[in-house]
């Protein structure tokens, strides 16, 4: 006797199996990369929290990033996350649920991004940057984020050369990357215009290597109301690639 095969039933069984196999053997998932930076001087040595989707993920004090306190120059340390839209919140000290900021940040697969906490005397704001730029093996790349609330618009010079695109940068502004020649001992100067006279606000020096990108962070108060000199104007840099 010839057995009759019921084709629709067979298809259903196969498809059901396909669904469950897909769940059992996860494909390589795309990831996104994020780091965070606390630019609020009031959090000097006082940690606050960064939470993603209401989960506290990181404690940061002033001038801190995921890799720890940022000195003159540090590598950016990124967390790997599943791509998607995240609620990114900076909290006050003590309780990660006591949010100072609450924003949605869309993190795309394969992208690197930094979320900065800016503060102007309690006016807190989270600012997200995209950190990817096409790598140039022969050139270094620099950009500037202005997080000093009482500093005037500033420009950046390397030695005596203005960096194109890094001029008249205002508080909370992030410039695009600019290509500059590598230099073993450059002098980075943040300049401002004081009634027609160009003056230097702050300067730093460290080697600029080819193929890397640098995010300079202008931070702290020009007129530091506290007795803590660490809250005064300063310049840090993160190597973001």
């Amino acid at each position, binding site marked *: 006797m010839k057995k009759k095969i019921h*084709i*629709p039933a067979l*298809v*259903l069984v196969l*498809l*059901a199996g396909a*669904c469950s196999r897909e769940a059992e053997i996860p494909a390589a998932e795309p990831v996104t990369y994020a780091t965070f930076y606390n630019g609020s001087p009031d959090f000097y040595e006082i940690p606050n929290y960064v939470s*993603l*989707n*209401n*989960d506290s993920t990181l404690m940061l004090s002033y001038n801190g990033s995921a890799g720890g306190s940022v000195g003159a120059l540090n590598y950016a340390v990124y967390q790997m996350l599943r791509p998607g*839209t995240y*609620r990114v919140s900076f909290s006050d000290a003590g309780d990660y649920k006591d*949010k*100072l*900021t*609450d*924003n*949605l940040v869309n993190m795309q697969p394969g992208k690197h991004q930094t979320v900065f906490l800016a503060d102007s*005397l*309690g*006016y*807190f*704001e*989270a600012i997200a940057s995209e950190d990817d730029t096409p790598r140039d093996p022969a050139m270094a790349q620099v950009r500037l984020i202005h997080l000093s609330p009482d500093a005037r618009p500033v420009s950046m010079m390397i030695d005596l050369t203005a960096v194109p695109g890094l001029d008249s940068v205002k508080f909370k502004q992030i410039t695009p990357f600019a290509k500059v020649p590598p230099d073993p001992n450059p002098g980075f100067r943040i300049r401002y215009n004081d009634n027609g006279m160009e003056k230097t606000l702050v300067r730093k020096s460290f080697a600029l290597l080819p193929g890397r990108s640098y995010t300079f962070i202008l931070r702290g108060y020009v007129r530091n109301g506290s007795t803590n000199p660490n809250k005064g104007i300063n310049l840090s840099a993160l190597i973001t690639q």
Partner: protein
Amino acid sequence: MKQIFSLSTLILLATVSCKRDKNETALPGIKQPVISSVNKDFVQAGDTITVYGASLQQEALQTELALAGRPSKIVQLGKDSLQAIVPVNTYSGKLMITVSRDNLFASAYGPAVTVAATPVVTDFSPKYAYEGDTIALIGLNFPAEPAQNAVWMDEKTAKVVYSNGKDSLKVIVPAGANTNTFSWRTYNGPVYESTASFPVRKQQYAAATIMDWLRQDPAFSYMHAAFTHSSVKNYMRYDSLAAYLETGRAVSYFFPSNDPWIAQGILTPERMATAVVAPNNYTFVNFPLASILPVSLSPEQLTAGKHETALDENIVFPYDSWRTYRKNYVQLEKIGNDWYVQALTYWGTLGTPLKIQRVHKVGNSYLYELKAPLPYDLDY
């Protein structure tokens, strides 16, 4: 043919079924909230704002509202509306509603809202005033339209007569106001109150002596600082002058109010009560001492020329002989309708003539308020 059709349908159904499963696991039990409108698009920090929409409140879920990324306190919550307080220190920006459970959430943006900056009062000028006087409040974030600013002094409405649209308001001290804190608000925002009181002068105080008056009138709060140096070297200070003015004798006393000292930067309001100044602390010439006439002269009784001072009454230096041959006088001079007073010493006139700007009748004495600080040479 029929079999092929059935097969296609089954594949399609199975595919859709798989996709639906994935969506449901992303946000199980969370409906997408919607903000449809807001009751006002211009607010002040501290204002209450009403947001309308759908699925704003969902069972067992937390609802949060942020304005320009700053969390706002929700004070009333319903499915289709909520009320929240605009947080302080907030920029203008979009509203964002979020409903969440643990780390699952659904968010939606709403319309942009303009936030007026929080008004701040940091100072006032002058440092005291009579009711009806116009004073300036110094601060930040005052709207340009006077009507959008409201000020109360001693809980009485102070009429706003001018705003420069940023850091200065001019208001009239209301009738009946006493020295007390003042408060303000802009637009329909919350009311802020000063920590310091604004000193309101009175036309008359219950004072039997000059000292009683000086203690009560805020325009003379620096007298302690001046009197501390009002006596001469090696003699008791402060008490000599204060005691004399305390006696209730009929005198005419010429003395500046605080403002001239402040105007010339000699004293700051903060140091009025504690600073020590040395107005012309000459051995034999001291204006605060030498400007007491031991007679009660009304403004109508003032006469030009030199007048003997109370220093000749053995009050301050009872055992000193200097007063017999190094006398000090008060020199009065009328220029136009104004009287000026100047110390006339053994060595001649001291400093410049000081204008009398106001006179107070105190018991049977007169207190003449000067519009310039005392001569201020520091030593002899």
